[in-house]
């Protein structure tokens, strides 16, 4: 009985994790699509590296709440406000999840071309 219970628990847990992974994958894919669709890359770069036209997003320290708040109400002179009518909270969460996957850059000391 005990064996059965443990096995059932493991199966259930694995099923949940698999579902969650699938859901995460879906969110990331959706976030990637939205990142392109809404033109985030236009100012922030395809990997959120930023530039003179837009702030860096890669390795952002913003929480999802802070990120969403800023996108809804950016500072004057910065990006346009993307309101809920255009981008839902769920979609912004997916974009945020995608941004968080941008790889950590190499250290400056490890890039010979930046130490010329």
């Amino acid at each position, binding site marked *: 009985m005990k064996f059965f219970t443990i096995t059932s628990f493991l199966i259930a847990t694995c099923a949940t994790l698999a579902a969650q992974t699938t859901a995460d994958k879906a969110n990331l894919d959706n976030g990637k699509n939205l990142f*392109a669709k809404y033109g985030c890359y236009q100012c922030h770069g*395809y*990997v959120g590296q930023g530039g003179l036209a837009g702030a860096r997003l890669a390795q952002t320290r913003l929480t999802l709440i802070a990120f969403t708040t800023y996108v809804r109400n950016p500072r*004057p002179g910065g990006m346009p406000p993307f309101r809920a009518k255009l981008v839902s909270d769920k979609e912004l969460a997916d974009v945020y999840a995608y941004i968080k996957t941008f790889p950590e850059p190499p250290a400056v000391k490890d890039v010979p*071309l930046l130490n010329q």
Partner: protein
Amino acid sequence: MPDSDNKKKIAPVDRRNFLRGVAAGASALAAAQTVTAQVASAQPPVTSGAANPTGDERPGSDFMVDVIKSLGIEYCAVNPGSSFRGLHESIVNYGGNRNPELLTCCHEEGSAAIAHGYAKIEGKPMMIMVHGNVGLQHASMAIYNAYADRVPVFIVIGNILDADYRRGNAEWMHSVQDAAAMVRDFTKWDDTPASLPHFAESAVRAYNIAMTPPYDPVAIVADGTLQEEPIANKNLRIPKLVISSPPQGESAAVKQAATMLLAAENPVIVPGRLARTPKGIDSLVELAELLQCRVQDQRMRMNFPSNHRLYGNPGVLPASPNLSDADLILALETQDLWTLTNRQTPINRFGMESQPTTKPGTKIINISALELNHKSNEQDFWRYVEADLNIAADAEATLPSLIEEVKQQMTADRKRALEQRGIKVAEANQRARDNNRQLATLGWDTSPISTARLSAEIWAQIKNEDWSLVSTDRMVSGWPTRLWNFTKHYQFIGAQGAAGIGYGAPASVGAALANRKHGRLSVSIQCDGDFNYSPAVIWTAAHHKIPILYVMHNNRSYHEERMYITMLGAKFNRGSGNESNVGTALIDPDINYASIAKGYGLYAEGPIMDPKDLAPALKRAIERVKAGEPALLDVHTQPR
């Protein structure tokens, strides 16, 4: 309009023959005279001026070539046109195609932009010839760029003013009453000479006007009849050319400027189109080091060494440096000073408000020759600036006297205080530089290739050469300014002037041509959108063996405009698809610039997608350029 000595005479009807015919018809004399008058007005005029040439005559265009040679003009960029065929033939057969040497161009816009780029390296005008109204219309946008960039260009417009000399069809459609009128709003001076002596005087005057700050394009109309009819006046002479000394600031105003600079706690120098010559760099370095103050370069010329410890922040847009901490701004040939010191409502908001970005009480000293050449129609004079001291003079020419005044007024105590300020500026510069290197690592290995990686890879290959960046770097987020070490005047030439796109590819060729005789390695980071206006200019580079390396910043779009569409869409809660690509993206199909370049006769590779492939490709292309030919690398890049 023909030389007065050459003007053919329209003969009256040959009355003797006419009367003989009338007599044979047994008509009355009185009646015949009446008929004569009627016939004279009804029949096409008979001319007696036409004569077969002996071949020993010299056309007026030969003298025009003598005049042009006296000005020391090296090159003439030309897309051939019938209204200046006389001058064209004289340059080749009489002038030996030297000084000026013709550059074969496939579009007049390219001709003008080649001259624009050439002048910024060489420091003197190139000549272009444009054909009547149609050629000048093609050239006009590039002429406006040069005008707004305060660059001298010597424009010769072919035109046939005398209707009697127009040989039908195109010579009527391409002739105008006032040929220079269409560019008068954005040239500094023009004239339509009526004789060869007039041509000589106006050409010399025009050259001097173009070369007196503020530099700008000038236009001379070379009349077709003057070009092609023989020289009748045997006493032609060419006036002596003496370039006027540039206008310098009035001594009392300069003294006051020095006093204000020394009293300021945190002055910032903002140079725009300051350094016309290498002396401008030396003077600015001397002044900045005397004052130990920040220099926030607009990067419109090579004004200040990019790695100098007093360079403000190499990571900010030249148009929006942070001047909020300044208590005095010294503007030196600065562009749009008002926008540098004020903030306006952005396009993603409604209405228009503005507020100063400087702190209350910040003083402004403005030294600029722009005040000496105002025109009304083209609005490139920007908003009025309430400066505390305005000096209408050439800034480069004024700096030596300003430096002397600062030295004279400097006390030992003040000097010690300023040294402490300099240390702080240098520390801020180092922080900005470290931050730039950190930012450059983001997306280092990504594809499309980051503009930071692109710039760092190019720098690695050219840093030990005698190099010259013959393009702007704004469209690649200013990474060359942030990562390279610019020290020499010819290493940077700024941008379009009037932000007219289509400048980059041809201006780079002109600058590379000027660099050629010095053996410099010319590199252009070439935007794809800009390239497509005048792509055939790379054939001009191949044909004339002008060594230049084009590295395509191929982001596959007119990206600035794409960002605008996105911003406006969000403003109105719409545009939730890929609408911003409509009318802006250069995709479907992707344009293969390596194939285009090969078609025009260049060595080319690409598209390069993987950053690891950049270094070997750059090495191969640079070898070709060092051997004296143009080369192009097509690189798929991040947007900015």
